[in-house]
């Protein structure tokens, strides 16, 4: 177990290296530069050359990559190329709390919706509640989040005028983005919870528990749910990863000043340091989410042998 944990943690390093390599190559291969964006006042070639020298952009790209790696190990990502008075860490430090808050809220909300819904619909299979939650699961899983986002902006912000359309700040701004971001994960989790509850209910040990006269509550909670939660726990990792990635569509849609919006604007602006930092941050979070879940899985279910 310990060996497996260490191996998984060590694998983060080469993976991050390749993520950095791919992103760096793609970003620098792309036509355009960070300094050709202001079409009304194009910079003179001299100015561009000077800035390029200052930021080391005149060096060959492999050399730039090595320099980047050296700095990145010390978590120094330099300064932004489009907002040159600010360091990348400062920019990310501003966006990260927003994205993290949105993500955590959405994850909690999706768990709060999906777990009870999945459990109840499995216990009352083929009832109205069951069909209702299956419908919810299918729709939430299928309809793209930006479509749900647009429709709900239309209903709640334009038509009913209950909530503001865009921005970030007080609770009223957070309601729509959080709910919409939570829908997809909630749908997936509802499906999994229901399916694994149904499977657990049919197990022999559940029949044994019932036949020895345990109260129904005890059977459901300690025998069915305890086992049914294992597959659910494994899917939380990919769901969290999807949620992190999904957040930037929501951030774009609602103009929320988080990392996701930063990611897209930095790619469009060829702001190489910001691109690298945000991509690595995202990849790191997703890897950690997946590893955590695999380890939790091993703890939850001793039957699973992790080290292969």
């Amino acid at each position: 177990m310990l060996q497996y944990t260490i191996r998984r943690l060590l694998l983060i390093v080469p993976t991050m290296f390749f993520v950095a390599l791919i992103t760096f190559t793609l970003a620098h291969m792309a036509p355009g530069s960070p300094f050709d964006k202001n079409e009304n006042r194009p910079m003179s070639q001299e100015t561009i050359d000077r800035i390029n020298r200052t930021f080391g952009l005149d060096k060959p790209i492999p050399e730039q990559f090595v320099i980047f790696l050296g700095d990145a190990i010390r978590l120094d990502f330099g300064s932004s190329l489009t907002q040159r008075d600010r360091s990348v860490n400062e920019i990310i430090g501003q966006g990260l709390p927003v994205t993290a808050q949105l993500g955590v809220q959405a994850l909690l909300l999706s768990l709060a919706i999906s777990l009870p819904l999945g459990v109840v619909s499995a216990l009352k299979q083929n009832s109205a509640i069951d069909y209702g939650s299956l419908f919810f699961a299918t729709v939430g899983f299928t309809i793209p989040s930006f479509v749900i986002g647009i429709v709900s902006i239309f209903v709640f912000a334009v038509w009913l005028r209950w909530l503001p359309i865009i921005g970030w700040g007080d609770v009223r701004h957070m309601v729509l983005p959080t709910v919409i971001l939570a829908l997809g994960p909630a749908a997936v989790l509802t499906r999994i919870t229901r399916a694994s509850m149904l499977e657990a209910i049919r197990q022999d040990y559940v029949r044994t528990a019932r036949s020895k006269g345990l109260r129904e509550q005890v059977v459901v909670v300690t025998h069915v749910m305890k086992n049914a939660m294992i597959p659910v726990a494994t899917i939380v990792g990919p769901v969290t990863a999807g949620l992190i990635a999904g957040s930037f569509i929501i951030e774009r849609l609602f103009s929320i000043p988080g990392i996701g919006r930063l990611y897209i604007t930095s790619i469009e602006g060829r702001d190489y340091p910001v691109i690298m930092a945000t991509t690595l941050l995202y990849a790191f979070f997703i890897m950690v989410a997946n590893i955590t879940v695999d380890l939790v899985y091993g703890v939850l279910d001793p039957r699973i042998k992790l080290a292969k």
Partner: protein
Amino acid sequence: MATITTSPTQRRAIEMNILARKQRSLWGDALWRLRRNKAAMVGLAVIVVAALMAIFAPLIAPYDPTAQNTSINNMDPLFTGSKYTNAKFLLGSDELGRDILSRLIWSARISIVVGLVPTSLVFLIGASLGMLAAFYGGWIDNLIMRFTDIIYAFPDLLFLVIIMATLRNSPLGDLMGGLVLMFVALAIVNWVGLARLVRGQVLSLKEKEFVEAARAIGVPTKRIMVRHLFPNALAPVIVALAFSIPGAMLAEATLSFIGIGIKPPTATWGVMINEGFVVFSQSPWPTLLPAFCISIVMLSFTFVGDGLRDALDPRTQR
């Protein structure tokens, strides 16, 4: 010579038995289960309609999807009954006075192509690399799997965003309004999942007796892979591909909605939503109609995918 004599009753019993138990193959059985699944059949019908729309777009669409007529722009659909309608435009016109119905129809074409082409590429790359990894094991397996690990660590959408956003102004990104780059990007991102699936399948099948038997009688490796392993690994692969088609369509719509997918003026549902969203508070229809189309098509594919999974793997409990 001894002949087997049977009494008339015996013969009838045999006949009846044959009649009562009509033999079905694995695939026939799956097809039978699929056809009894109403949701899947409805989904399939919608997909067929969308496909026909895509194929015959030039014949069905009343106007050129890119023809502008700014004097009659932002018309509402006729069914709204508002005063801003024009009999020329059944579903209204957009900001540039383009016919929304024609654009919706032409979008189906892009969506279907975006669904099918990358999925075929994913199948070719993923299935062959997955089989190679599983069958040969050793360093080939290690190499392929470590490579998939890296791509796996990249969140799909993030990878797509970075490929599309960086390369869309390159020569590759200009081919067919960005379609070719979209195919490449989707194939690069999605082959990994299929390669892992096929590898897992083949690894477990490899230990089965029928493979051992085939090897024992001297069947060449290539033939074992193609004739014995591949068909048996096919069922979950079909299900995965059935979900990969709407996945690709969704990715196209999402990227085009963010503004880094297919380039305007090409009509796709994602592009239409992106353009419509600008004038959303004045007239929501240019946004809502393509959103509706995407939703219906996505739902249909999910129904068919679920149906296929239930049909091909009867053990799964719904």
